[in-house]
């Protein structure tokens, strides 16, 4: 993975920077020893590693602002990092950069039931927010699979989703405010406890900006009352197409399930062997459909879903008898990743979204690509919203396999885009899909995106090398070119 050329002058001044940082963050908050830096060399995308020049772990917004101002003045790059669980390499360090970890921002600041919100520091885990409010019958809706470990600040940076986002939305639909520190060290308070503040929707653009626009030091999230009743059904089909048809029919009949997950045969077998969830091993595709709401509404809805499933040739239909069985249904799906870990030393998880109706053809395409690249693939799928997670199995100790896995993954995402979909549904672009951005966006599209970046970070010091395959200087992006279609800088360096 090519990253921006390290700045030798910055690396040479490392000792001096350590001293200046220690004046801001005392004690063990500045890490310079190689063996300690090793803990930060990668994130959830373990295929790529780099040792950061330094790691700094501030505890207050004032410290974050001072660190950023210092680094801004010295031209030192910053890589923000939450819990390090991201799957697209958004927190991959830079050899000449300071990794700014938010792990010490680990307190919930206020629970405001009357305004249905929680104000929290960014290092608090996603699940801890729900844990803090569940005794009063509330929860925070987005639930990425890593919710036990991932931080809410990281969720904002990546605009994380989860299995329940068809009905309840992703992170951007569930937050109302942030405190953000810019690369220059300005502290901005954006939004609050009310929706739709006037002016440009900076909260909206910061969410999912992958740490390129600012460092988040506080988040206000919406909480919701827990549904009165939640029920799930496990439904097996003789073909992928039958399962996909069932998903489309459920939605076109006006039912929006809280969750609707699909797995292919390989994923079913692996998950069953790992979790003993009671999955039917003779099915070619398996759906978990979960409905929530009031008791009567869920009962009616589930009867309709099952009737549709039977019309779609379902061979296996099982409703959960009790809460333990519902959790068992999910245990297989939620352990799909570790289950793959047992079958293969390494795997990468892709993340394209497609128009749902294209699913059977896209899966056929993935099967063909699997043969072409000589690597196995299992498919798990947020079927309700068309977000596909092919898991490509490979051995990282074999350089050729890693290269083939990367090429296979890129081919899958190009296929998703060609079928009318997108590169990433919820994991972000990061370094993983950076060089694929031109498959989805043309030059004018990418330049307009980078003009937003220039408004926040004109020197390009925040998390460079992520999201964009080419870095344009803001001064060049700012110029007007009245004769459109003619690109004045066609040969900018790629990295």
């Amino acid at each position, binding site marked *: 993975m090519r990253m921006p050329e390290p700045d030798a002058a910055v690396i040479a001044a490392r000792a001096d920077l350590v001293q200046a940082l220690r004046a801001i963050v005392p004690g063990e908050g500045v890490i310079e020893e190689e063996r300690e830096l090793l803990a930060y060399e990668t994130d959830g995308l373990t295929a790529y590693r780099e040792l950061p020049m330094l790691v700094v772990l501030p505890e207050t917004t004032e410290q974050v602002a001072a660190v950023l101002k210092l680094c801004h003045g010295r031209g030192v790059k910053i890589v923000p990092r939450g819990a390090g669980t991201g799957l697209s390499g958004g927190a991959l360090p830079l050899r000449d950069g300071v990794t700014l970890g938010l792990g010490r921002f680990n307190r919930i600041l206020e629970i405001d*039931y*009357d*305004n249905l*919100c929680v104000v929290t520091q960014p290092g608090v885990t996603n699940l801890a927010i729900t844990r803090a409010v569940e005794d009063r019958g*509330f929860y925070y809706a987005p639930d990425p699979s890593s919710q036990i470990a991932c931080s809410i600040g990281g969720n904002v940076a990546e*605009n994380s989703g989860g299995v329940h986002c068809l009905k309840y939305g*992703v992170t*951007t639909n569930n937050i109302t405010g942030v405190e953000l520190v*810019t690369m220059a060290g*300005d*502290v*901005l308070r954006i939004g*609050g406890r*009310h*929706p*739709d*503040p*006037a*002016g440009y*929707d900076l909260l*909206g*653009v910061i*969410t999912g900006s992958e740490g390129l626009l600012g460092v988040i030091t506080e988040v206000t999230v919406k909480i919701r*009352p*827990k*549904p*009165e009743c939640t029920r799930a059904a496990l439904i097996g089909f003789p073909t992928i197409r039958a399962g996909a048809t069932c998903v489309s*029919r459920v*939605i*076109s*009949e006006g*039912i929006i399930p809280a969750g609707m997950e699909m797995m292919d045969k390989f994923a079913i077998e692996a998950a069953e062997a790992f979790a003993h969830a009671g999955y039917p091993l003779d099915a070619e595709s398996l759906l978990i459909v979960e409905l929530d709401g*009031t008791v*009567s*509404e869920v009962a*009616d*809805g589930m009867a309709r879903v099952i009737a549709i499933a039977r019309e779609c040739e379902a061979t296996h239909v099982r409703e959960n008898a009790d809460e333990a069985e519902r959790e068992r249904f999910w245990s297989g799906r939620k352990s799909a990743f570790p289950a793959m870990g047992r079958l293969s030393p390494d795997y990468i998880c892709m993340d394209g*979204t497609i*128009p749902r109706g294209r699913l059977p053809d896209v899966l056929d395409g993935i099967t063909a690509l699997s043969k072409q690249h000589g690597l196995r693939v299992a498919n798990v799928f947020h079927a309700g919203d*068309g977000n596909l997670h092919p898991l490509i199995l490979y051995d990282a100790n074999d350089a050729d396999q890693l290269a083939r896995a990367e090429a296979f993954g890129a081919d899958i995402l190009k296929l998703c885009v060609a079928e*009318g979909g*997108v*590169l*990433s*549904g*919820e994991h*972000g*672009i990061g370094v993983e899909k950076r060089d694929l*951005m031109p498959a*989805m966006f043309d030059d*004018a599209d990418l*330049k307009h*995106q980078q*003009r937003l*970046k*220039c*408004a*926040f970070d004109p020197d390009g010091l925040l998390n460079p090398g992520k999201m964009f395959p080419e870095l344009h200087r803001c001064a060049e992006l*700012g110029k007007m070119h009245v004769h*459109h279609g003619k690109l004045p800088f066609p040969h900018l360096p790629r990295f």
Partner: protein
Amino acid sequence: MDAQVRPADESELVDAIMGLVAAGTPAQIIGAGTKQGFGRPVNAAVTLRLDGLAGIQAYAPDELTLTCGAGTSLATVEAQLREHGQELAFEPPDLGPLYGAPSGTATIGGVLGCNLAGSRRVRAGGARDHFLGFRAVSGRGEAFKAGGHVVKNVSGYDLCKLLAGSFGTLATLSEVTVKVLPRAERAATLLLPGRTVDDAVRLLIAAWQSSLEPSGLCCMPAELAPLLLASLPADAGCVAAIRFEGPEGSVRDRAGRMRDTLGGPSQQLGEAESGAFWKAVTDAAPFAEAAAVQVARPLWRLSLPPASAAGVIQQLVVRSGGSWLLDGSMLWFAPAGDTSAGDIVRAEAEGAGGTATLLRAPDSVRAAEGVFPRQGAGIERIAAAIRSGFDPSGVLNPGRLGA
């Protein structure tokens, strides 16, 4: 250049904006022009009108997406969705009549550009939350796109959010993709009359916190009620209203349980009355009465932390006097007389942790006082930098969002 330019496709839109840039002439950007009184007055000799960029290009009901020209009328979009039992869940309001424009002519691009949502905002989110992708031409005269045609996407910055509520000051939308959702089979509304303001807001918060999934929460002084639904009496005190939507049995069940939980006198509106009532709430219809004489009468829209609403309402009524309607987190307030009461309204909104927008007032008042809340210097600096990146010559709706 003509005083009004009406491109028929995106390439004509590119040419039009290139022409503005070359001539150094700013333009007012409108869809069908129903909300020209919303925002600071734009001083521009040219009007760029986008309702020629109309037509539904792709609609896949079971993908829950619709793509259309940004100038397509909202009525056209909604009629198409209704045929397939779907809707725009954010319940876009028709604010045209507040400004004396005819109802039913607003464009989808205008609704997104102003980020307008109705009463279902409390449950379904705002316009911004349903805006999936677009094609647009920036003030640089360059066509570009962002987002996608699928409901879940984190590829690149979320420029849909940036353009939602940008009032045409960064780029002119040419094509939009929105998320669509199934329309509920039934709706019913629980009316709770004869309450104090405190009581009414407390009931609404209790409903919001319950697992009975209300999809509309509003309250108003009783004298306003007959303006929302002619059959409602103008009793004393304040009326709260809670809407439930879903399958028939579920709606009946939830409305009944909510009535029993909240206690006190109540009445229930059936399907048709409920529909008419919430349409009037969403459109702020009481403030559009006799539009011809009232278009210049100041009207505010506040966005508030919900629990602060009762205190804000009481202070506004005491300090300024006037009429109000609380719709979820959004408070409509028409000060008594012809004054904007700007200092009072802004101070009360900001004191409660919210914001106030002067939705309607004479041009001279909006030009002098500004329309949108001031933000901190840091945020305004970034907003200005974004604007100069997307529209360096300042040809698109200059001044509309602020000085």
